[in-house]
């Protein structure tokens, strides 16, 4: 199948290095301490953060840092073909773990000893790149909850099809069987915190694809910072003196 037309356009009309439309909204779950919606094209994810609060299960309490937990779940209607999956299948467990580890790396957990932070991400629509969207949504929700962090984490994926590196794969491109590189970075520190790839790639091409994904992360980071800054200003001027 042809994923990039001779004119250099992808199936959904994007250029190879073009990202889908991204959109973020802060504060969508009324009762959570922090929450956000993040959209990348048709992929739509809600994240809610509860905490830091007293550890619910005392035996899990850590005396010098916060306990970070994460649960990822997919709505029944999120995929193209409706599937009813049991909760806690292996894929969700793995993604929960990835998100938890990624977020834990940037939260300053030592500032909140003996407390617990819960991150819940709910996929409303899956159209490729859910992993990245979840991490971006979780970052926004944590920032909204006022949890101190070293840096924001942003994530984006890239792939390689028809000998072309492609940024931000959608579901059709993702299921084409080509390599799919998901990268998560700390933009300020300029470090990679998450890197996953399936399938094989020659090293020099891998470098290209990873570079492309990293550029994508930076673009997401710029957008997230804008949203956060605007939100902060709004909170401040609304509150008044």
């Amino acid at each position, binding site marked *: 199948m042809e994923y990039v037309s001779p004119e250099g356009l992808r199936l959904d009309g994007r250029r190879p290095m073009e990202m889908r439309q991204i959109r973020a909204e802060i504060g969508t779950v009324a009762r959570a301490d922090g929450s956000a919606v993040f959209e990348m094209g048709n992929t739509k994810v809600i994240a809610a953060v509860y905490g830091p609060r007293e550890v619910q299960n005392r035996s899990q309490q850590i005396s010098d840092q916060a306990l970070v937990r994460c649960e990822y779940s997919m709505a029944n209607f999120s995929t193209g073909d409706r599937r009813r999956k049991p909760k806690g299948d292996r894929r969700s467990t793995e993604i929960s773990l990835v998100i938890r580890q990624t977020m834990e790396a940037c939260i300053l957990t030592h500032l909140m000893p003996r407390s617990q932070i819960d991150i819940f991400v709910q996929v409303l629509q899956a159209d490729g790149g859910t992993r990245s969207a979840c991490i971006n949504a979780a970052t926004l929700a944590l920032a*909204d909850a*006022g949890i101190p*962090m070293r840096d924001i984490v942003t994530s984006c994926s890239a792939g390689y099809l028809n000998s072309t590196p492609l940024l931000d794969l959608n579901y059709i491109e993702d299921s084409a069987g080509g390599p799919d590189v998901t990268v998560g970075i700390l933009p300020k520190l300029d470090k990679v915190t998450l890197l996953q790839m399936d399938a094989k790639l020659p090293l020099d091409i891998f470098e290209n694809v990873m570079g492309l994904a990293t550029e994508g992360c930076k673009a997401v980071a710029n957008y997230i910072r804008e949203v956060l800054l605007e939100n902060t200003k709004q909170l401040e001027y609304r509150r008044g003196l």
Partner: protein
Amino acid sequence: MRGLQLPLNQTQRIRLQRALEKLHSLSSKANSDASVTVADTIPVNYDDAFLKGHGTTDLNGELVATVCGVVERVNKLVYVRALRAKYKPEVGDIVVGRVVEVAQKRWRLEINFSQDAVLMLSSMNMPDGIQRRRTALDELNMRSIFEENDVVCAEVRNFHHDGSLQLQARSQKYGKLEKGQLLVVDPFLVKKSKQHFHYLEQFGIDLILGRNGFIWVGEHVEARDGMIVDQANNSEQSTVEKDQAYTPLEMRQNICRIANAVRVLSTLGFNVDADLIIETAELSSSLNIDIHDMLGSEFHVLVAEREAERRSLMTKRKR
């Protein structure tokens, strides 16, 4: 961006936008570069000595924010004042909390902090009001003072060496809150002031603005200590009595009106202080707006417009 979760029609949307823009233009802090987000560099003069405070960290010799908020500078101290966050206790703060556990010689309270706070039996004024050692009998009777789920008002005493937060309730004004409702708002909306207990005489109700964002609106109670004595001695009798005595309707209307005023201000993200709450409640009754309709879109827009006007008058006066 934090959208208001309100259904607005076209004109309401424009009016609200206009009011918020006005608020924006009036605010001094938001227009300057003082607002920062996570990982923003905070400009400081590195030649001068400075102290890095809350919400900042050192990254390769640069001062960087760790939370979203507003940069504040006090003498040499540079810190980021976080906006939306969990409550950050300060010694002397008045807080409202809910008892989650009655343990040995102490109560544990949920106060919207990263841990539960501890109120020791020894930090309580005893019902008889006499300073004395706590006996084993007192310990057995702890539940007659506060039991699980009770709403309690207290003061932040200190941080213990193990990091736990200690409260105290050594005055008549502290203690159990009954006959009313508890509201939860974002703690940054409640400013520290001289007065957190308000007796709104015109309404006959008590308003307690906990610094932790827990706000109590309830019937006015005269002597709090008297109540505790009551509770301890004839708790059985009082529960029987209570069954008949509901809050009088007029007072309940006032409580609900004030409570809804708090809800409106908190949804709009405005400062929740006593004057503004009363003003908002009075605005609603002067316009003959039904108590429940206060939570509708129209009233939110009205309050936003009113607030924009009020603040612009205030800045003019200052000039």
